[in-house]
């Protein structure tokens, strides 16, 4: 069963096409990732799905409700948390929970039950009377998530929820998201951390307002079917990249840490010795050169950057 259905969703700001004919759907209980660089249109899409922004054209239904027709109905069925963890810093943990519970119209009994749940979930025992401002990043983030799901929404939108949080807290946060999903909550999350994207059941890569790719990680990696990626460790990676870009077998290159990834036009691992010989005869010693399985980052760069449009540095 689909809990989010998006059909040809478009948003235009004047001459600027922020979101261009997006179509996808999200199943109930799925963790659906929205991947894209800054300004790709992720936040605009989320805002339309939440009923905050009217689409220029196209349609979206959230939990069976048309966003354009009944934005208030949508608001009742969703939880939303953004990168800024919008808590009231001067208020205590408990007071924040009380306020957001009140906003969603929870009665006292339900609020108390949900308060216990959120304190438990966020690991905030003994910190109920602390001011939100005094909480460390990870706790604030979990409290913000807790406040967003006080009313037990079937669908949760997370807009870059892990910005500015240490890796350990991020892992803890993703564990919570897995739990939500396991209990049947649909989660739509935007991120530009590629490692986080691996937690998602399915991913949509958004580029310049368009849906550039859609599927689970294995499906996404299929864009490299018929092509090969080789990783080159060279003494002078910049020079190696320049030379590789000039070779007919190479479609494009990008920097991966200290190594260079070169996408070959065909699945021709046998070309490796030839390429290596050419690099070395041009005066660039090669330390290692081997085919690698495409990572999500390879996929992202391949989808987002048309061949020949430059490299990832």
């Amino acid at each position, binding site marked *: 069963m689909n809990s989010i259905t998006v059909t040809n969703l478009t948003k235009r700001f004047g001459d600027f096409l922020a979101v261009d004919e997006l179509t996808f759907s999200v199943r109930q209980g799925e963790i659906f990732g929205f991947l894209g660089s800054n300004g790709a249109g992720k936040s605009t899409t989320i805002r339309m799905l939440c009923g905050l922004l009217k689409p220029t054209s196209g349609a979206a239904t959230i939990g069976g409700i048309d966003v354009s027709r009944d934005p208030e109905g949508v608001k009742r069925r969703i939880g939303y948390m953004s990168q800024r963890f919008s808590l*009231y810093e001067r*208020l205590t943990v408990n007071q924040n929970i*009380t306020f957001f519970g*009140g*906003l*969603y119209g929870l009665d006292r009994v339900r609020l108390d039950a949900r308060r216990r749940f959120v304190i438990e979930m966020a690991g905030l025992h003994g910190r109920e009377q602390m001011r939100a401002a005094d909480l460390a990043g990870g706790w604030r983030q979990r409290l913000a998530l807790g406040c967003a799901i006080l009313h037990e929404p079937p669908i949760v939108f997370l807009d870059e929820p892990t910005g500015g949080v240490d890796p350990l807290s991020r892992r803890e946060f993703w564990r919570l998201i897995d739990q939500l999903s396991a209990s049947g909550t649909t989660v739509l999350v935007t991120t530009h951390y590629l490692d986080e994207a691996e937690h998602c059941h399915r991913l949509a890569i958004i580029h310049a307002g368009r849906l550039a790719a859609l599927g689970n990680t294995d499906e996404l990696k299929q864009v490299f079917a018929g092509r090969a990626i080789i990783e080159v460790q060279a003494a002078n990676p910049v020079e190696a990249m320049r030379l590789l870009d000039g070779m007919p077998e190479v479609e494009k290159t990008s920097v991966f840490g200290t190594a260079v990834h070169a996408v070959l036009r065909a699945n021709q691992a046998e070309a490796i010795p030839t390429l290596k010989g050419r690099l070395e005869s041009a005066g660039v010693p090669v330390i290692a050169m081997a085919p690698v399985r495409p990572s999500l980052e390879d996929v992202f760069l391949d989808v987002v950057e048309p061949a020949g449009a430059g490299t990832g540095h």
Partner: protein
Amino acid sequence: MRKMLAVARKEFRQIARDTRTLMTLLFVPAFFLLLYGYALNFDIRHVHLAVEDGDHSAESRSLISAFVNSGYFDLVATVGAGGSLPARPTVIERLLPDTQTKVGLMDRNDVRAILVIPPGLGRAVQTSKPTSVQVLLNGDNANTATTVMGYALTIIRSESARYLPAAAVPLISVEPRVWYNPELRSTLFLVPGLIAYIAMITAVISTALSIVREKERGTMEQVRMAPLDAGSFIVGKTIPYFLVSLASALVIIAAAMMLFGMPMRGSWVLLLVALSLFLVGALGLGLLISSVADTQQVAFQAALLVSFLPTLMLSGFIFPISSMPRFLQIVTYAVPARYFLIALRGVVLKGAGIEAFGIDLIALAVFAVVVLALASARLRRQWV
């Protein structure tokens, strides 16, 4: 309703947590009242007076003591007879003013007024011949000079009346009675204005920052995601600020009564009604500014602009509305302090009932409803 109360409770907690702001809201207004109340005083007392007595008669001494005993004048210098005022003071005389000359005294602001009694006053009075005395006034402050002239004329007129035979008393005499403020103390006129002025500024500024702050911190976005309508949000925000500013206004009113002897001749209930309507309008105006502005700085300046000048200049606080040009008179209809002042002065000074200012209360209510509706409409437009 529950959602609105959640907003109100949250807002109240935020205010309560912010001790500095709370103290500012509660006590700075009272402090302002003290400052303005003592500085803004149009009553003139202890006018420094010099006397040139060219007569030295019982009558001239009686006239001088009438000035001194009036309480308005302090005799600080006497100018010797014959030390007359040169018609055109020379440069030297201007640069080195002699304490003994009238020009010197006046130039150095030693005196504001000089009473010049010519020789022969006593004899003229005794023989019932008309005569005159001269009063020289420092006109560098026209208001003060006018007032002082009024005092001097009154004293001389009543002194003159003493010498008239009973039969010569004019057939029609004026017996002025100034109602509500028999001593014409300007504090009684100004303090209600100050109350309106200070309450307006505090109310507008406190709320002007409250929504824009949430926009800046990002909490607004979270609230917008909740199924909460803009009206509940606005009303929820108004409630706690209303209670705080009401407390603050009552502190000012108490201070005005204790320190400036402001009377309370009318009904407290009416005063509370007028005050509440006025405050809700002012808070609504602040919220409207806050819903339009994008940064706290802009909101603060806009709040000052709409509360400070109009309330000072266009409310009838200091300048009577009836003597303004027609165009400005029309503008004053949009200044809530205008209506509140009529009601406040009516209740406090006159003990007037609702029939005297019912229409002004209605105007205040209309203003409050309009600004709150505009603020909600503005927010609603931003929300969806």
